């Protein structure tokens, strides 16, 4: 085991720095601000540091390691050229306060991304400011809130969220101060139109919908839901977490939405890095555009000396929407992620439609292969579809309830069994409306062979002796981690010996 705080080597063994500017005069600080004791940081030489983090990396699973069918997270391959591009000084070493004429290339990329996202979503204006999906949700909710305030409709205090929604939806709306009305979904997770009708009145500000929904099904009543919400003066919000399923086939604009967030890191690839970074731009219809957080980029034909800095015959400049809600992050969003996603979108262009088609093809194929292999092995009694449907979109759910009831095998057992087979487990126990739920999202960047192999291995796991499966995983760096112990015996930092 390699532990960072075990490296307590001698002073001076670490990374060396130039001391050219240091003067012989001692530095004087106000007496009560002088740090008396330096932090108990470890002391490592570069070879030790490199080995420590390499050791850690080998105890971690990523898309590069193997198949990562984590539903709802769109774990697709990240083209490596994106990383090379993100290190170009013209993005890595840019300060957000630099003047426009220093940033023409970056601003042209921002402009292209604003336009591309508007085209794909059917929205009128896009801001790249929010830095994650949840922040995009919050931003859009704030824009809608200001829209209603400006119209004097202050009685609109409620936001409708289906019970199958991602947790961020109610959390984001509550953060903006809205009351959450949770409506039950139909058995297949789809919107219950009658339940919706029953709760709408002029106190509704917004309805938040994920389409395809969190069970991977297309909400075919979405136009009806939009009509109902709009008929009482409310707004429709599209959670873009599952946008990967529909590009070039339909759009939130066509479905009647007024605002949408994009998880750029999911749909367009920015490595998820163990939990982040992401990027969560939002797009809105024109009536909401004046409330967006800025700055946004607009262009005009070049004039005068512009050509000295221009990257084409246009000048790209910042502008602030007239009644902007202000900032949601201090700088210009996760610009580095935007640039990576620009490189990704350029790889597809109008072929983004093909990307979504392959995402849906792979999901349906995997679902088919799982049933096929179950039939071959005679274990069709162990799981059922999370929702009855002929086709799924980019992800789908299975319920392991039969296995649980008949053999005592839980979705968690199966997840851990899959780790032993060398896979990342699908999302488990979400959405909550499916008992013993496993949610699979293979993405478009997996080959048919991988999907077939996974299906076979999945069935092998189901066929294991339940007692053996309760013990899984056994081949991983550690075995089942005791989360209750972690919560009861909180150890949130290294316990130094003198403490």
């Amino acid at each position, binding site marked *: 085991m390699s532990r960072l705080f075990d490296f307590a080597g001698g002073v001076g063994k670490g990374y060396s720095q130039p001391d050219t500017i240091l003067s012989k005069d001692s530095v004087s600080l106000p007496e009560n601000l002088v740090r008396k004791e330096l932090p108990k940081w470890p002391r490592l030489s570069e070879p030790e540091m490199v080995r420590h983090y390499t050791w850690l990396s080998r105890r971690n699973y990523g898309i590069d390691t193997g198949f990562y069918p984590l539903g709802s997270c769109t774990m697709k391959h990240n083209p490596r050229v994106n990383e090379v591009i993100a290190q170009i000084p013209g993005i890595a070493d840019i300060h957000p306060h630099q003047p426009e004429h220093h940033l023409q290339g970056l601003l042209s990329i921002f402009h292209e991304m604003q336009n591309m996202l508007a085209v794909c979503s059917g929205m009128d204006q896009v801001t790249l400011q929010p830095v*994650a999906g949840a922040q995009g949700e919050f931003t859009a909710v704030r824009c809608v809130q200001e829209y209603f305030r400006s119209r004097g409709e202050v009685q609109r205090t409620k936001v409708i969220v289906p019970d199958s929604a991602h947790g961020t939806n109610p959390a984001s709306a509550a953060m903006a101060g809205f009351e959450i009305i949770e409506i039950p979904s139909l058995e297949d997770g789809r919107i219950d139109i009658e339940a919706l009708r029953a709760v709408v009145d002029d106190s509704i500000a917004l309805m938040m919908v994920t389409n395809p929904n969190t069970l991977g099904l297309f909400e075919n009543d979405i136009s009806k839901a939009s009509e109902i919400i709009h008929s009482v003066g409310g707004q429709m919000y599209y959670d873009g977490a599952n946008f990967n399923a529909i590009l070039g086939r339909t759009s939130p604009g066509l479905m009647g939405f007024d605002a949408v967030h994009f998880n750029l890191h999911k749909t367009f690839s920015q490595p998820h890095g163990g939990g982040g970074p992401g990027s969560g731009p939002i797009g809105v219809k024109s009536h909401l555009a004046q409330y967006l957080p800025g700055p946004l980029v607009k262009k005009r034909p070049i004039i005068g000396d512009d050509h000295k800095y221009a990257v084409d015959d246009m000048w790209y400049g910042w502008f602030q929407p007239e009644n902007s809600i202000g900032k949601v992050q201090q700088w210009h969003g996760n610009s580095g992620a935007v640039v990576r996603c620009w490189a990704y979108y350029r790889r597809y262009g109008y072929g983004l439609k093909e990307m979504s088609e392959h995402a849906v093809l792979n999901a349906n194929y995997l679902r088919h292969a799982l049933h096929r292999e179950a039939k071959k092995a005679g274990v069709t009694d162990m799981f059922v579809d999370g929702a009855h449907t002929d086709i799924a979109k980019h992800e789908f759910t299975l319920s392991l309830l039969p296995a649980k009831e008949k053999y005592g095998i839980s979705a968690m057992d199966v997840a851990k069994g899959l*780790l032993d087979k060398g896979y990342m487990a699908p999302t488990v126990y979400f959405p909550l409306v499916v008992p013993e739920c496993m949610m699979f999202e293979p993405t478009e960047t997996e080959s048919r062979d991988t999907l077939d192999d996974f299906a076979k291995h999945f069935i092998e796991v189901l066929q294991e002796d339940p007692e053996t499966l309760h013990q899984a995983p056994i081949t991983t760096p550690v075995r089942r981690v005791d989360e209750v112990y972690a919560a009861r015996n909180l150890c949130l930092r290294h316990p130094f010996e003198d403490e």
Partner: protein
Amino acid sequence: MVDQLPNRGLELEMLKEMGMSSMDDLFSDVPENIRMTEPLALPPPQSEEEIIADARRLLGANRAMTEVVSFLGAGLYKNYVPASVFQLVTRGEFLTSYTPYQPEVSQGMLQAMWEFQTLISELVGLPISNLSLYDGSTAAAEALTCSVRVHNRKSTQKNTVYVSELTPPDKISVMNNYCQGAGIEIRYLKHNSDGTLDLSSVQDAAGSCGVYVEQPNPLGLLDGGYPRIKEIIGQNTALIVGVQPVSLGLVEAPGNYGADIVVGEGQPFGSPITAGGPIYGIFACSKPYLRLMPGRIVGRSIDVDGKEAYCLTLSTREQHIRRHRATSNICTNETLIALMGAMHMSLLGPEGLHHLALRNITACNLAKQKLMEINTIAIPHILGTHFNEFIVELPASAADCLEYLDRVGIIGGFDASRWYANRTNWLLVTFTDQTSAEEIELLASHLAAWSTEVSQ
């Protein structure tokens, strides 16, 4: 041609196996009235070679701070990130993983984040750190709402927090957006003419839920009055200190002078500025805030064999479990950038941190000496101690001065009137560990030339 799809060419076979004959069959559940009938109005696909050529052309047209002489800071700082950090962070096992929902195959990132928590905890002098928020501004905003959750019940100024009036408006704007939903009112703390906090105005904050100040403050000043704040506001008001983390190699950790929550922009450790993101926000606190704090936390635990193991803990605060009652809506955060920070901090070690801080303050002191000699400009807070930036008062507008300097290839600093509207002649100049004595000479000579010219 799109080259990222392994099943290209196999579509028909795969469809046929499922009893379908075309891609359209897979989208038959999309009602006809909402189908997109035209192709996406976007350009054709490009190859990797074409994309990188375009990226180099466009990004190459930008003026990178590393390619010019720059004195621009104001919250984000020119730094040097060791080569090993970039090499290690692009290891696919880190880069292409996600939130460690399956701890058994995520021990690497979990342990690295637990170590990050320890590094930050030690740095700021508080026992608890999460594993990053989006940036310094959202960390500060979340600290305010957290302070209200913890203290509102006992407070005499309900739903009220106090923030230094010097706080950059963009940051205050973020705070307003985060606070308005909970009905939190933000009031402002005043400052003396020497740039330090007016401690008598801190009296007004007693009985409120929280107080937010920055050390060094936005004028670059280290404020020796802060150690007295906690005794003025008392135990039922949170003292929140925003830090420039490098300064803590010299300056007392806020946890040692009464801070309950410390936040800040982690960027100088491990991250290039990247136009402001992705970077990472630091959030650390003392025990009373633990169960109401935002963001993910890693705990050390054991596995079924009793072996040391790590996992996410206290998740019941978070949106995926608590939904609308969550302490924050944050899900995707900045883990990978925090990892870069941890790597950089590990390489520095305690003495390296001290050295890095010394390089900043020495460059700043040297610049102060040089600019003091120019009699057409003034340094309004000359008697104070600055860490790595200070205000210069010019004989004409900072905007004009920056334009002049730009023409000779220098990014001269930050026009402080963008923060303080009536301070049109205030220029905030920044000197980091990356600033050389020659660059300071260059700035001094150009400032002298310009200010003499405009003074005549």
